[in-house]
């Protein structure tokens, strides 16, 4: 199965009732899969007129209490920022998938990781967050999508699966989810017709005195709760490592191989791979940064997660960077070369970040 198909099948098995999408490379297999599979199950599929419309249809379906999803790639996700902000403001659960490609602008149709900022710092207007999940394999495309529906319903927030064209297009054997979909909580706020109850209203416009301030505190409480409970990450060989690689998505997948290659050459290298990019595994990174000699961030961009790693390392160890912003997936050998070139810092730096490479 390709990553895109595994993700689509995950959504179906998670009980996604409504799918809305607009064609864009490199995620077209996903929309095509849903166009065949959703109607066959009596569920909703619409090829929308734009990404603006797709995310607004998701908004409507979510407001009506349905599990809803849309998928796109970078330029399309830019158009969806409006809807994401409204979903967050109105506290609606939804799953949005970004199979990233190169940018800015039309960029390329090749895999890239240039949308980290847009995703984890929230690309739409206002103070909000999405939960952002970063799969590294076809299996994770499937599993994390199911998890995304659980999280969305649990916290009433939009959840993004942030993949890239490489993981979307690659084929791997996977184990399909056979259990029931994640339990759907009651949705007393949903718009189902005000029969025997007061009317419900789904809104994000709060103009009464102090109303918006209170609402934003409620959102922040929710985000604090998510930060406490939902951080996910993987590690490899961190117990004795001197050099810590930090990477997500496709780069994390490559970095796992680099750890083995470097260790075979006698270099003690480990890997921290955040699965949730927001909430970021902040405590874990702080602790690891305090006991390694070097950190090396590897991304297919010019240094986006790098800024979070620098912020969290707080100068305890120099943070180096290897970036590939051209819509090109690096090889393990290239990354290995960067790892082998690292030297232990001359003296323990004092609250000072290392140079970018």
């Amino acid at each position: 199965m390709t990553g895109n198909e595994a993700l689509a099948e995950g959504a179906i098995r998670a009980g996604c009732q409504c799918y809305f999408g607009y064609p864009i490379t490199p995620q077209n297999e996903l929309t095509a899969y849903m166009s065949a599979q959703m109607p066959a199950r009596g569920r909703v599929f619409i090829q929308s007129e734009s990404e603006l419309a797709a995310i607004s249809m998701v908004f409507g379906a979510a407001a009506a209490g349905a599990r809803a999803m849309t998928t796109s790639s970078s330029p399309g996700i830019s158009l969806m920022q409006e809807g994401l902000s409204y979903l967050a403001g109105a506290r609606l659960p939804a799953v949005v998938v970004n199979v990233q490609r190169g940018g800015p602008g039309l960029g390329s149709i090749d895999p890239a990781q240039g949308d980290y900022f847009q995703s984890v710092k929230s690309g739409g207007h206002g103070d909000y967050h999405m939960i952002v999940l970063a799969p590294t394999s076809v299996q994770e495309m499937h599993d994390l999508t199911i998890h995304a529906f659980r999280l969305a319903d649990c916290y009433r927030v939009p959840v993004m699966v942030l993949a890239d064209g490489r993981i979307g297009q690659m084929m791997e054997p996977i184990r399909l989810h056979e259990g029931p979909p994640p339990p759907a909580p009651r949705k007393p706020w949903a718009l189902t017709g005000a029969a025997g109850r007061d009317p419900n209203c789904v809104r994000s416009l709060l103009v009464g005195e102090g109303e918006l301030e209170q609402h934003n505190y409620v959102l922040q409480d929710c985000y604090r709760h998510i930060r406490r409970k939902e951080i996910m990450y993987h590690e490899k060989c961190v117990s004795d490592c001197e050099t810590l690689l930090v990477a997500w998505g496709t780069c994390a997948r490559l970095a796992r191989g680099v750890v083995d290659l470097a260790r075979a050459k006698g270099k003690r290298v480990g890997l921290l791979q955040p699965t949730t990019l927001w909430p970021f595994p902040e405590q874990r990174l702080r602790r690891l940064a305090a006991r390694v000699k070097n950190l090396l961030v590897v991304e297919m961009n010019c240094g986006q997660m790098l800024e979070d790693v620098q912020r969290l390392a707080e100068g305890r160890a120099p943070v180096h960077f290897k970036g590939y912003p051209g819509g090109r997936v690096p090889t393990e050998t290239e990354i290995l070369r960067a790892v082998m070139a690292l030297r232990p810092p001359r003296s323990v730096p004092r609250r000072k970040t290392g140079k970018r490479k």
Partner: protein
Amino acid sequence: MNKDNKRMLYKRPEGLTDKVMHYCAGCGHSLAHKVLAEVLDELEVREKTVGVAPVGCAVFAYHYLKCDISEAAHGRAAAVATGIKRALPDRIVFSYQGDGDLAAIGLAETVHAANRGENITVIFVNNTVYGMTGGQMAPTTLNGQHTATCPSGRDPAGMGHPLRVCELINTLEAPYYIERVALDGVGGVLRMKKALHKAFSVQIAGKGYSLVEILSPCPTYFRMTASESLKFVNREMRDCFPVRVFRDQGTPQNA
């Protein structure tokens, strides 16, 4: 008849809250809300109705209408209504939109929802200006009409001509019922009620897309008295936007 032998001739519709409306004196929205509430009551569908409020003067519709209501991002009401209707096909779904929302920023959503023949009712209140933001030029502003952003009057060279939404939607295959009415007097109000009744009946019967355009006065930004605004609707606006049934039972109607 009650026990005092008095007949109830007129009352507040069940579907309307008793909140004082924020609309300006002489505005058509309050009347449209009231009649909409009456129609939902008469068709006995209020408790299975979900409305979509626009960005614009009617954004607070949920303060006044006693049915479930969602806001939508500016212009996206038809897409939000589509999402709701597809998720809950047995509910009655309407969007209530102004000219900026429906005919400018949301024209794509409007056209495509109509083209898919979504089984929803679109209520389009056309008062030729952006009321909420201070009376700017709308896509439906008449040629020569003065607004905050065409202070010398709308000049079609460079600003374009007023956009005729019913005529545009009537070029599509899918819509089932399209009518334009004018809130320019008692007859207009009754005609609006009949049109809304028909539009919702079409949806209840599962026939498909219905659109009712309501030419409506905005005395504040016409910079006129309430009665002058009614005359403006009756003469100038009707001149540009003919009041008639454009489509019935899926068939285009002759003028």
